[in-house]
């Protein structure tokens, strides 16, 4: 019995100690040492969040139509993939050899890569205005939807009341008609 009492007290003491440590831990992942929540997926975003994500992710900016023109210009600039970047090397000793090697490699491959990149450039130039136009038209559709939603809600609210009043009026009129006949 005495031995049981000691064990019981020891278990209780250990539990209290663990409880204290538990209190200091905020994340349950730390408590159980395994992952609990996964990262949010795009499909879990609502309309507004998706829109925000679109602006952030694809246009790299906060939602602001005034800035859109600058963004458009920067996308336009990047759309031309035929525009060659300068070849550089950060290495002090061997740098010139690397630069030379890269320049030769570019010279050899350019005719072939240009064939593909020219098509890509054309595609980009057409796609960017289309993409921006889509973003803007989506915004306009959303604004119109909001207005329509608010109007529909009001109409539905009033409709039920009107029906009830109409039915009551019908009943009253019928009653009056019967009384007049009598």
């Amino acid at each position, binding site marked *: 019995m005495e031995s049981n009492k000691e*064990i019981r007290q020891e278990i209780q003491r250990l539990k209290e100690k*663990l409880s204290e440590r538990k209190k200091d831990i905020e*994340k349950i992942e730390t408590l*159980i040492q395994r992952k609990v929540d996964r990262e949010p997926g795009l499909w879990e975003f609502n309309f507004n969040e998706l829109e925000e994500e679109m602006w952030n992710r694809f246009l790299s900016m906060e939602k602001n139509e005034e800035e859109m023109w600058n963004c458009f210009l920067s996308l336009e600039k990047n759309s031309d993939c035929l525009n060659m970047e300068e070849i550089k090397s950060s290495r002090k000793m061997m740098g010139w050899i690397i630069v030379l090697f890269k320049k030769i490699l570019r010279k050899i491959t350019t005719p072939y890569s240009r064939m593909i990149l020219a098509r890509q450039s054309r595609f980009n130039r057409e796609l960017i205005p289309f993409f921006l136009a889509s973003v803007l038209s989506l915004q306009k559709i959303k604004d119109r939807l909001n207005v329509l939603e608010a109007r529909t809600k009001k109409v539905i609210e009033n409709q039920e009341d009107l029906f009830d009043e109409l039915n009551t009026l019908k009943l009253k009129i019928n009653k009056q008609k019967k009384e007049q006949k009598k």
Partner: protein
Amino acid sequence: MIESKQLLEMAEKSPNDLSKLLKSCFIENKNIPDSFIGLILLKLIQKNPSYAVLPCLSELIETISLDKGIQSAYNILTRLEVMLDFRKPSIGIYDCALHFIGGAQKYGCTIAHALQNEFDITLITNRNITLDELQRWYNLELSRCRLKIIKIPFFEEKKQKKIMIDPADVDLKKDNPFHIISKESGNYDIFVNNCMLEMVYPLANISLFICHFPEREISRFFYVSKYTEIIYNSLYTAEWIKKRWKLVPHKHIYPPVDMEGLDHSQKKENIILTASRFDLSGNKQQLEIIRSFKKFVKQYPKNKRDWKLILAGGSIAENQYLEKIKKLISLSPGEDIELKVNVSADELKTIYKKAKIFWHFTGFNQYDPARVEHFGMTIAEAMQNGCVPIVFNGGGQTEIVEDGVSGFLFSSEKELFDKTIELIKNQDLLVKIGKKAFQRGKQFNKDIFIAEIKTHFNQLLKEYRSIKKNNSIFIL
């Protein structure tokens, strides 16, 4: 290779080396189940004197907490206490809507009432409420239960604080605000999630998810699959758990209904009754019931004579839906429509006793499965008082009412009117079906629920107290 047998032998013969061996198992990434570690500790305690156990127990717990996390170490100790009979097993029953009168809440409180002698019960909720209020609302004795109110900062700090904690408000891109409850769940032997809140991660040794209906789709914070068992209230709910969550629920227990009258042949009046909460969303469709009654009066003025409609149910203080109902009733003052809001259980019982027919529309003309009655406790209450139910043919209602035997099911307004007229005209049929309804209603009574709950929890406890032998067979 270390055999699990070796660990058990070591716990018996050389406890001082046990921690070292366990540590080496963890280093080698051996996945030892918590229940087996519990078995090792049990052996250690049972086969050795306390002076030998005490120094290594603390070391072992530290080793376990480092590898498996603090919660695992805590859970192992919690289970040991129960296995060694050091204390009563504890249950935490969580319901975020406990401050609101409802069928699901009655379900949870009746579980607490049924188990409070054998278990240490704590009712956990998020908004202010007292045990006295719960006892009064559900006519239950809960004196041995405790109440713990845990406020969730996310919902408390909202500018427009809603009456109900609404999981739909949770931003799935941010942190899960319900993890405060997940953490609390780890303080009990058994954790019961009674409000089907799938965002609570269970940390207790045994966890039960009571599902009254799978309301939301699977999201980032979906942990129902982490629960030991899913208990469901009706076959309709079970079907939707499978469809919506792709999970197979475990145990079916119908909700407790305790409105039983002594006799079905009490003196009844010409009353058509409907009883349900005046839900803000209009889920219970009382407005439609009034409209149908008005049509009914218009179509069958002679048969309707002397019959009145009573709408009974609970409501919160400011209820726009209730206001609409009042307005609709006031439009036709000549018709016999009575409204009984927030009446006491005794008064409601008296109305049930008097009423001959019971109408229930929930789900009628609805497309969302959540808006169909998941069970329909008030239907069973009416039946327990010999009131003939005419209810919508859908959801859990079809499990209660046997069409043409203990009541009627309807799918259209015409069917509702035809069946009502048939009962009004044929008093013998009314009495005959009322008698059958009374018998059928008995099958959902509180005593049956309590007996099922006790049997199930005692079975769980039996398994919890004894670690299965097959745990000791595996090779580490």
